[in-house]
């Protein structure tokens, strides 16, 4: 019997898309759009299957630490390792990229060669973020991701403002990540002072001797970086623009995964590595999370652009994830991770629906749409399920994530205020149904709007929506399938043996 676990290698997992992307860019690759598209799609699906093997052969522990020295002077290595947290996010990444790759068919009309190469490059950078075991490797990919993201938003965007939005996005995230860099450097340096070894492996950090004040400082610096990605409310304004102006597959990726890198980083660094400092920050952050949840839910209701509604709903949901993380216990953490996965799928599905509507009706203004349900019953069915998942209907994935996150926050042992934030966050269930049903009601119900759709969904769109809906059902009805792995994620770094 061939042992499959021998072929599982993290560097291959991370760099495989990059290699495929380079192949596409090579001069010998035929300059045929259809061929390029099919090849790229094949690559992404192949990569998804490869990532799936990691899931199948994962048995409690981490997979293949791969850490050659990179900058030895500072103890920095070019390291990859995969634990439960990374595994879940990796799988989500490959799934959403597969969906986005399939969705690109009708949305991307020019420069396909560069588009698919950048898309694959983008996948590499995001997987690098999730699987990095060294803080500087992490930072490398964190920054690297900006380049493909910028060009993908700017040059394949919908609407005239794409370049402006992309610039806004890159400036915001770049500034954030620089703040984060100074946090990482301080982390590295104080770890050196405390343990007297220069070392970049996240799992080996031990900051017990570092005073909580310093930890708070480092934590705040890091949070500015992560908060831009997540996003936390005052620094979120890049998101609606970028998500609205990007092409649909890119919006799916941005909302589905890019935001999750922020959540992942907060778990990895603030929660696991700097628990002492995070204890002081978490209650404050929980209030920010609450503002995220309520405020953006209100804003979402006032939008008339369907993509903007979805974009704001993403921020609102990210607030829930943040709230789960702030609880600093295993339930909240599991909820946050679970909801990250659930919301990744839901928001990808919602953007896919928006994209289909946009393609068919050439209109995003909700007041000009209407009566799509009659013309496109299949789309209507899928859209209803995905929207219901996003408002947290039981038996669909969104509900489980929301409930576990909020329960975690309620069970938080930090202080009473965190519990109250959790209670105040619950009305989001009402608010979210308000704006999402507005979407459904105005877009799909009622009499036909000015812009009439020509045909129902095409086959490849059908595949996307079906897979999302099926996954949402599976996650919603049998959350244990993934929670079994998620609940092994430790709240602190100490338990992880790297």
């Amino acid at each position, binding site marked *: 019997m061939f042992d499959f676990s021998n072929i599982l290698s993290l560097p291959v997992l991370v760099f495989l898309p990059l290699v495929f992307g380079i192949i596409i860019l090579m001069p010998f690759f035929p300059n045929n759009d259809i061929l390029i598209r099919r090849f790229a799609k094949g690559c992404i699906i192949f990569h998804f299957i490869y990532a799936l093997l990691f899931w199948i052969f994962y048995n409690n522990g981490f997979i293949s630490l791969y850490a050659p020295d990179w*900058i030895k002077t500072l103890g920095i290595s070019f390291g990859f390792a995969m634990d439960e947290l990374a595994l879940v996010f990796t799988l989500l990444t490959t799934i959403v990229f597969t969906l986005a790759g399939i969705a690109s068919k009708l949305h991307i009309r020019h420069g396909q060669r560069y588009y698919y190469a950048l898309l694959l490059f983008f996948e590499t950078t995001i997987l690098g973020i999730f699987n990095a075991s060294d803080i500087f490797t992490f930072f*490398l990919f964190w920054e690297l991701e900006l380049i493909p993201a910028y060009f993908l938003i700017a040059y394949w965007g919908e609407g005239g403002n794409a370049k402006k939005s992309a610039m806004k996005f*890159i*400036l915001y995230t770049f*500034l954030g990540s620089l703040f984060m860099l100074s946090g990482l450097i301080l982390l590295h340096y104080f770890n050196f002072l405390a343990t007297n070894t220069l070392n970049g492996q996240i799992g080996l950090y031990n900051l017990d001797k570092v005073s909580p004040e310093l930890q708070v400082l480092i934590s705040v610096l890091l949070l500015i970086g992560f908060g831009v990605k997540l996003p936390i409310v005052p620094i979120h304004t890049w998101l609606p623009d970028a998500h609205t102006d990007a092409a649909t597959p890119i919006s799916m990726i941005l909302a589905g995964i890019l935001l999750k890198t922020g959540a992942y980083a907060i778990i990895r660094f603030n929660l696991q590595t700097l628990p002492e400092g995070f204890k002081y920050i978490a209650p404050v952050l929980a209030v920010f999370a609450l503002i995220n949840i309520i405020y953006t839910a209100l804003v979402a209701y006032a939008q008339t652009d369907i993509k903007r509604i979805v974009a704001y709903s993403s921020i609102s949901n990210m607030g829930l994830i943040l709230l789960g993380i702030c609880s600093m216990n295993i339930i909240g953490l599991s909820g946050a991770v679970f909801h990250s996965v659930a919301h990744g799928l839901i928001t990808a599905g919602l953007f896919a629906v928006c994209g289909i509507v946009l393609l068919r009706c050439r209109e995003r203004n909700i007041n000009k749409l209407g009566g799509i349900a009659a013309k496109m019953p299949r789309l209507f069915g899928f859209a209803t399920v995905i929207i219901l998942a996003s408002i947290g209907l039981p038996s669909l994935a969104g509900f489980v994530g929301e409930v576990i996150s909020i329960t975690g926050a309620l069970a938080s042992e930090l202080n009473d205020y965190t519990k109250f934030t959790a209670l105040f966050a619950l009305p989001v269930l009402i608010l979210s149904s308000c704006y999402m049903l507005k979407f459904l009601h105005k877009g799909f119900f009622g009499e036909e709007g000015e812009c009439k759709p020509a045909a129902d969904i095409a086959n490849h769109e059908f595949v996307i929506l079906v897979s999302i809906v099926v996954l949402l059902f599976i996650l919603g009805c049998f959350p244990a399938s993934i929670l079994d792995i998620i609940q092994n994620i430790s709240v602190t770094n100490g338990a992880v043996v790297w």
Partner: protein
Amino acid sequence: MVNDLINIFIPHIILILTIIVQLVLGILKPYSLTFKYKDINIRISNIVTVIGIIGATAGTLYSQGDYAGFNYSIIVTSDVKALSILVLICGLVSVFLNTNLLRGNRQGCYKYHVLVLTALLGGICALGANDFLTLFISLECMSFALYFLIAFPKGYPSKEAGFKYLITNAVSVAFFLFGVSYILGLTSSLNFTEITQIFESERCSIIYAIASIMIFIGLGMKLALFPFANWIIDVYAGSESSVLNLLSTVPKIVVTGVLIRLLSGVMGFNTEINAVILILGLITALWANIYAIKENNVKKLLACSSAANAAYMIIILAVFSSFAASAAVFYLICYVFMNMGAFAYVNMIEPECKLLTLDKLSQTDSKLNAAAFALCCLGLAGLPATSGFIGKIFLLYSLLQSGLILLPIVLLLLILFTIGLYFYIKLARGIIKTKQTAIHHHYKILNSFSRPVLLLMALITVIIGILPFNLLARCILLFQ
């Protein structure tokens, strides 16, 4: 240190010999201008210079160990050697890029080479200088050669640029000399070693602080630091790219090397200088980055980039430690290569456009060239997979290592980086052809060397970005 003139002066002698050969060739002009192959003189002079520079590099590498000569007025240590080689490499690269320039002035090709070699000679002398007199003379040797080089191309803009450089330089030299005279007055010595010994034992006075700041301001002009910064934009706008290639690298390397030496001894005994360096560096970076936001001219943008990057390097030196010095040198090396890449690309498209604006950047026949240029720009912005990224990490690391007092300054620096990113992105975006800018302009590359140079620089940028370890370890070794 061993007092050994031969070991010290091998590169200098080789450079001087090359200069003499060029002068003789210039007088003889072996092939008349009526010769069928018009560029033959350019070729010959280029080859001679290349051989000379390679010889000088080999000579630098030849000597092992530390040496001192002329009563400790010139020394050779490992850091001097490393920076000298960097200077020589920059000279070499600009020789490869000079075809456009020399075709416009075929008569003067030998003169041009004499000037380049003089500048390099001045540069490596200044790096090794261990007293103020030697330093002053070598720096002026370099600056004057550069002045003539800037004014070398035909036409009004280059003359204007050269003149501006000269005048600003003159004023800054006045500051420099004023400072030196104070030091001389205080210590009655010009030798760095002696001065260091005296200040180590004596209580420092306000005169000393002012003298140090004056020297710093005088040297800072060459990096386009505040207060003498404004020249850089006009001078760059009026210069030719191969000259700019030299102007943006050689003085930077030399002055950084000199400042590291001065700050580690002569000027390093007062705290005011650190504050002044920080403030001036930050103001310069702020000015350059904000100025660049509205700018549309590629050369002016690169001028801003040059000033800003010089400022970052100087800011590292404000917290003087051996790690900071090596971080500065590392940053310098990274910067030099990325910058040369950018100028190589500018060199390719320059002959076609009178005024090089952003929308003309996409006029290249090869997408690889464009990609390499974009890579260099992103590297200058400090995005990863390029050497600029590693340089940025070490820059911040060396600042933060010195304590949390500098955290506000680091945060300000972060904002500056972000503003910088804005115009670097504009530059990098320029390579993409859009409907408005797709001017079907048939043109051929005049200079066959600029493409290999560009690709090589991009490659180096990526290699350092991915595998920085060797280079960094060497940089750290330099200052231990």
